[in-house]
């Protein structure tokens, strides 16, 4: 059993495919060559360009443009936005997938569909909805104005739009995983005298750990990189309501290429870190899912 698992792990690591695939060598190499050329042209070259442009006037210019007050405040706002949006969606995602995977209730299929809504609509529309809703001429606008609450063209609006755009990430990863794992372990914990919270903390959460981390990484990447929805609702007030992606655009439009690419390079670094973390979490996450599937089949004797 242990040996079999090990072998399977190694095979998965080596990406060994069944021998039955017997395309001629030429076909295989052509396919590989096309893939690499495409990735080189459309991914690697632009990435390289970002760093070349950012460092075009030397390291000093690079760091000076990052040290700019407006840039720093854009970085701060992006971090704040992510710091609010990610935990909010973490809680929502766990709650929603817990509800969907482990309970039967009215409107469950509607909820499952609605979770995907932010993926289905263009982010610009999401932003516009918030403007329509909270804006000065929107439904809640006058009331908010009377109570001196600023949402549109302010930080709360940016955070709200980001939360909306990123909320499917965690839930989408967890729902299939939790469904595969079923409720037996939770029931076992209950029969052993564990309370609801203990069951969640000691049984449910450890079982979905990697799926959760995977979802959070994706959620965070999107929260930091979101442009469309935030662009509509932020009002582009320099130093106040500018996130990093918006700031890149502003700098670029002002022909400040070093500045624009310097900020862009930071986002790129975030993206690359995300990729590495994502691959690792994905690998662990797959193990979790495979185990869940095996347990359901009751395979090993």
């Amino acid at each position, binding site marked *: 059993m242990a040996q079999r698992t090990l072998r399977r792990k190694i095979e998965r690591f080596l990406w060994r495919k069944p021998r039955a695939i017997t395309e001629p060598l030429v076909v295989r190499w052509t396919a590989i060559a096309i893939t690499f050329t495409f990735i080189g042209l459309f991914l690697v070259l632009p990435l390289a360009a970002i760093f070349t442009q950012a460092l075009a006037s030397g390291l000093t210019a690079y760091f000076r443009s990052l040290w700019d007050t407006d840039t720093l405040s854009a970085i701060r706002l992006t971090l704040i936005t992510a710091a609010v949006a990610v935990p909010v969606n973490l809680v929502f995602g766990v709650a929603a997938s817990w509800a969907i995977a482990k309970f039967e209730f009215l409107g469950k299929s509607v909820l499952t569909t609605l979770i995907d809504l932010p993926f289905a609509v263009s982010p610009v529309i999401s932003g516009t909805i918030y403007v329509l809703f909270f804006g000065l001429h929107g439904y809640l606008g006058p009331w908010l104005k009377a109570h001196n609450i600023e949402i549109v063209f302010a930080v709360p609006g940016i955070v709200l739009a980001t939360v909306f755009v990123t909320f499917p990430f965690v839930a989408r990863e967890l729902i299939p995983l939790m469904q595969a794992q079923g409720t037996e372990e939770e029931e076992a*914990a209950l*029969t052993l005298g564990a309370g609801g919270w203990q069951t969640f903390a000691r049984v449910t959460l450890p079982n979905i750990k990697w799926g959760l981390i995977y979802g959070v990484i994706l959620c965070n990447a999107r929260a930091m990189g979101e442009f469309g929805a935030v662009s509509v609702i932020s009002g582009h007030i320099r130093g106040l309501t500018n996130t990093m992606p918006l700031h890149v655009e502003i700098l670029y439009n002002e022909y400040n290429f070093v500045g624009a690419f310097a900020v862009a390079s930071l986002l790129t670094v975030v993206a690359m870190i995300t990729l590495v973390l994502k691959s690792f979490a994905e690998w662990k996450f797959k193990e979790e899912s495979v185990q869940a599937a095996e347990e359901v089949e009751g395979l090993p004797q």
Partner: protein
Amino acid sequence: MSIEALGISKHFGAFAALKDVSLRVETGELVALLGPSGSGKTTLLRIISGLEKADAGAGMVRLHGEDVTTKGVGYRRVGFVFQHYALFRHMTVFENIAFGLRVKRRSQRASRQQIREKVEQLLRLVQLEWLAGRYPAQLSGGQRQRIALARALAIEPQVLLLDEPFGALDAKTRQELRRWLRRLHAELHVTSVLVTHDQEEALEVADRVAIMNAGRMEQFGTPAEVFHHPANEFVMNFLGHVNVFHGRVEGGRAILGPMEIDYSGRPHATTVPARGLVRPYDLEIEHHPNGKPGFAATVCHINSAGPRVKIDLTAESGEAVHVELAHERFRALALEAGQQVFVVPREVNVFVDEGQG
């Protein structure tokens, strides 16, 4: 600790899983709930455990006389063993067994040392001491189920409930674990209910067997009672192979397919449909009629690999008949396929369609 489940009904949507079922299990007894899938046996077990609730107002659960109908699963202190083990996959065997001890309230929780001793003692009980550090994925099915049992016993449950505990195992492991469970029960004497769809398992392990069908309890009795005196056709059919002969009863006689026998249970002259059920080993084969009621048949197929010889025959009237003989008797008869023989039933269970005639 006795278990009483009284007048339990349970619906899942429009489907009635249990219809007014009552079950009483005496202290120290091991009772098997036996039935085909969908008969409601697992639902009944889950209602006893508190994992499921009976329909509102329909039924009461009492453990040792105490009404626990409205109490949660944690309060009832039942040990529950799941068909697919439900071991915590991210914990070692040791941690799995210790779980029930660790989640107790601080004031009731045993010390680290006490927990360690308790877990080791349970591992010895299930004879798997050397697996303490392993994860569930590294165990065989039989080992997992024994660990699951140790985990359930850790909380010193009032009652032990087992939901098809050996259902996912291969035949050989299943038989071993069955004997082992019987011995364990004799040792611990904890009141237990075992759900199974395997009649052999139920008859071998349990003190009493409750046979369930379509949300109802058909019969509740010792293995010998239910086997030798089945309450109805379903029970007899479910507890092993039978030959079914369709026919009728009238005027103290039963005419069942190719045979006619005395039937004192119904002396009335009116005719009612009935069926005669005969176990394959309750049919005798003779070369010639010996005066007892029986019927002529032709031998079709003989399978002598096994503890008894299985013989397929076709009655003159066309019915397929299955007979099981001891090897000695088979040799004495020197049967061959194609031979004409005479089949004599030793015991026929006649079931009359009630409410007719």
